């Protein structure tokens, strides 16, 4: 052998220089919380001050943020389950509109009681979602297409229901007015501090967190999103779980619609336009993968709060709402970009 080996010292140097920047895996797990804290700190810094007090940190303002994101947040919780099974639900904004319209109509036109109205509307939302889930799971139509059609159908139903008009809520006793009890949704509890919608959002969030940690159902959801064939071969009732997931999404969209009617004292067929996109944004910022199988409800809650804080601080500074859209877009791309970076790193 006369051939020399190449210098073993030179190469590693060159290679280490070219080595890629590596982010520790743990960062990704807490990505949405890190982002939430950063946005929170930025909000403190950029908050206007009144008499030396930071307006953003005012407890009323903070609770107001939670109230403001309650509808999107509730939609996003349902959306999380849908995206975990690698689906998508474009119909939630329209179901919200249908539910708000239906709520106002049942209360004002049909003179139904609050409990009856809420039950009927929730049942409609759940049935609507379940039907979409069945069409998607059983007939194998893509969820994107089924719920795109569902969006149109829900908007159409809402317009037919109300004759195309928004229905304003008036409260009182007697015919043609809504029961006073319904105005609760527009009020605050705990000595007038905590807005009721914020409380409902928190309640739904806690239930979802418990469901994810403690139920067999949630494990089946993750397994179906991770590897549907393996899930099926493990005896998981794939169709039933998928239908359930879409039913939950429809149910929560209807709940958000009832809250919407209560907060605005009206129900209109055009309510909730584009809300589905904000809900998807919250889920994506929360670190849930659109490929399914990976994600958390807590991340989604963080994502929804992040969007709420962002809207709030921009509004406090009187920044044009169009700029809000731009910033939201940047944050979504950043969140998705970090996810993409993560999968490349693997």
């Amino acid at each position, binding site marked *: 052998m006369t051939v020399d080996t190449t210098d*073993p010292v030179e190469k590693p140097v060159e290679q280490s220089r070219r080595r890629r920047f590596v982010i520790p895996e743990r960062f990704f797990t807490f990505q949405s919380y890190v982002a939430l804290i950063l946005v929170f700190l930025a909000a403190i810094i950029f908050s206007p001050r009144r008499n030396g007090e930071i307006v953003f940190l005012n407890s009323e303002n903070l609770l107001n943020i939670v109230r403001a994101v309650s509808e999107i947040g509730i939609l996003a919780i349902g959306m999380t389950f849908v995206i975990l099974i690698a689906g998508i639900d474009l119909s939630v904004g329209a179901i919200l509109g249908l539910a708000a319209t239906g709520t106002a109509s049942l209360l004002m036109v049909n003179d139904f009681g609050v409990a009856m109205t809420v039950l009927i509307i929730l049942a409609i939302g759940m049935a609507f979602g379940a039907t979409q889930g069945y069409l998607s799971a059983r007939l194998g139509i893509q969820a994107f297409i089924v719920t795109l059609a569902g969006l149109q159908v829900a908007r159409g139903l809402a317009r037919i229901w109300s004759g195309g008009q928004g229905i304003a809520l008036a409260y009182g006793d007697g015919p043609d007015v809504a029961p006073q009890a319904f105005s609760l949704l527009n009020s605050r509890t705990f000595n007038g501090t905590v807005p009721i919608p914020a409380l409902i959002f928190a309640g739904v969030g806690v239930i979802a967190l418990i469901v994810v940690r403690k139920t067999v159902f949630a494990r089946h959801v993750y397994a179906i999103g991770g590897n549907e064939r393996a899930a099926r071969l493990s005896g998981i009732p794939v169709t039933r779980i998928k239908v359930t997931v879409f039913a939950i999404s429809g149910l929560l969209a209807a709940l958000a619609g009832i809250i919407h009617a209560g907060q605005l004292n009206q129900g209109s067929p055009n309510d909730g336009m584009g809300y589905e996109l904000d809900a998807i944004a919250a889920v994506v910022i929360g670190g849930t993968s659109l490929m399914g199988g990976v994600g958390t409800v807590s991340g989604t809650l963080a994502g929804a709060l992040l969007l709420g804080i962002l809207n709030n601080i921009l509004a406090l500074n009187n920044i044009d709402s169009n700029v809000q859209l731009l910033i939201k877009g940047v944050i979504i791309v950043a969140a998705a970009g970090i996810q993409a970076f993560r999968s490349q790193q693997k």
Partner: protein
Amino acid sequence: MTAPPLLAMRGIVKHFGGVHALRGVDLTVGAGEVHALLGENGAGKSTLMNILSGVVRPDGGGIELAGEPVALGSPAEAQAAGVAMIHQELDLVPQATVTENLFLGREPRTRLRTLDRAAMRRHARELLDDIGVELAPSRRLSSLRVGEQQMVAIAKALSLDARILVMDEPTSALSDSEVERLFAIIPGLRRRGVGVVFISHRMDEIAVVADRGTVLRDGRNAGSFVVAETPPAEIIRMMVGQPIEQLFPDREPPAERVRLRVRDLTVADGSDLGGRSEPRGVDLDVREGEVLGLAGLLGAGRTELLDALFGLAGHRLSGTVELDGEPVRLSDPRDAIAAGIGYVPEDRRASGLVMMESVAANIVLAALPALARAGWRRAAREREAVASSIRDLHIKTASAESAVGTLSGGNQQKVVFARHLLRQPRLLLLDDPTRGVDIGAKSEIYRLLAGLATSGLAVVVASSELPELLGICDRIAVLRGGRIVTVLDGRDATQEAILAAASIEQNSNPSRMEAG
């Protein structure tokens, strides 16, 4: 002064984090040589080949091609230097034709800059003829068998002036006749002076095609050998470090009681029957504690029979299936699992594991409702089940919470086993359970199977490796065209007898001929 070898990798070192994947490995391949690269999974074969093909950069050591030091910093540089990798998953476009694939990204143009289809067709024909492959270049790639697709990949590599061809388990998805066709092109490669690195787990193939071999173990060279002078036992000893005295354990004969009774099982053809054979009039008895093998050529219907027994044929299934004398309905995998049937499918990545989830989540996946109370999980019971599975099946994992993808192939397979064993099945269906698993893990799986059968479980195992079937089965049913053509006794069956039954038409049972 001898001519330098075509490829010389010397003292290659690579760490991944704290893990030493390679600790100074040497590999030399001469021109016109077929060089077998062996080692258990995790020995460092893939890392070494990824370094050779520019995907991974080494932390130390040098590579020379025909005496010239080269730096293979990217796959493009490796390709330019003449290194081509034929992957298990081929880098070809399934929707395009053979010709289009051969010229992907470097299509010949006419003077008007339009596609020169005539030149493409002509060159494609030449390239295929060069390596002696008879294939219509106009065929769509997806219509070809896996083996034919590999040959297209090889033709493409050679047309890019590849001097070194890395073939990573090229035969793992091929039928015997396809393997023969693949091996038939190797003399042509030798004549052209191409060096082939041939990765395989199968000793019989290495004996047929390779000239020399290198064995890796734990990221080090465990030995090199000249194939013609080295008995397989010696090579296996290099791979595992100590001799495996007995690959197939001894076992008690099965009980008399029939566990599974199948009569006239037939599956109506579905819409997507691409070269597969659905079961046709299958009669089968499997006794308690018996291991029954399913043999047959690729496409003979082994997997389809197992699928049908696990309820995957749905409502296309007809005939009767009884477990311990009771008829069972099998229109969904849920029916099968409820009846006490477990299934370890062929492709654990596609059908077995949820790769992003933990070992624990994968183990309990089928048993979750059973371990829970009214849909609420009981963490303590799940942890217990996982811990005992890991212990009983000797699953090697850093922790129960590790991602299942970090495990070796053999341990991943044991996770799928564990999932179904947790349900305490009466019948276990296995489809090529040792595919892509190294010899140490194979031996463990055989031992596990023997233990399960001894405890009374009935096992039906399909395999494309005849020595495996002969080693572990009490009886072997040979399939052809979805029918069972003969059932041989495992003790006195031979590879020749199985192959003859699997491939020769007149051997079939005439009483079953009219049914199709």
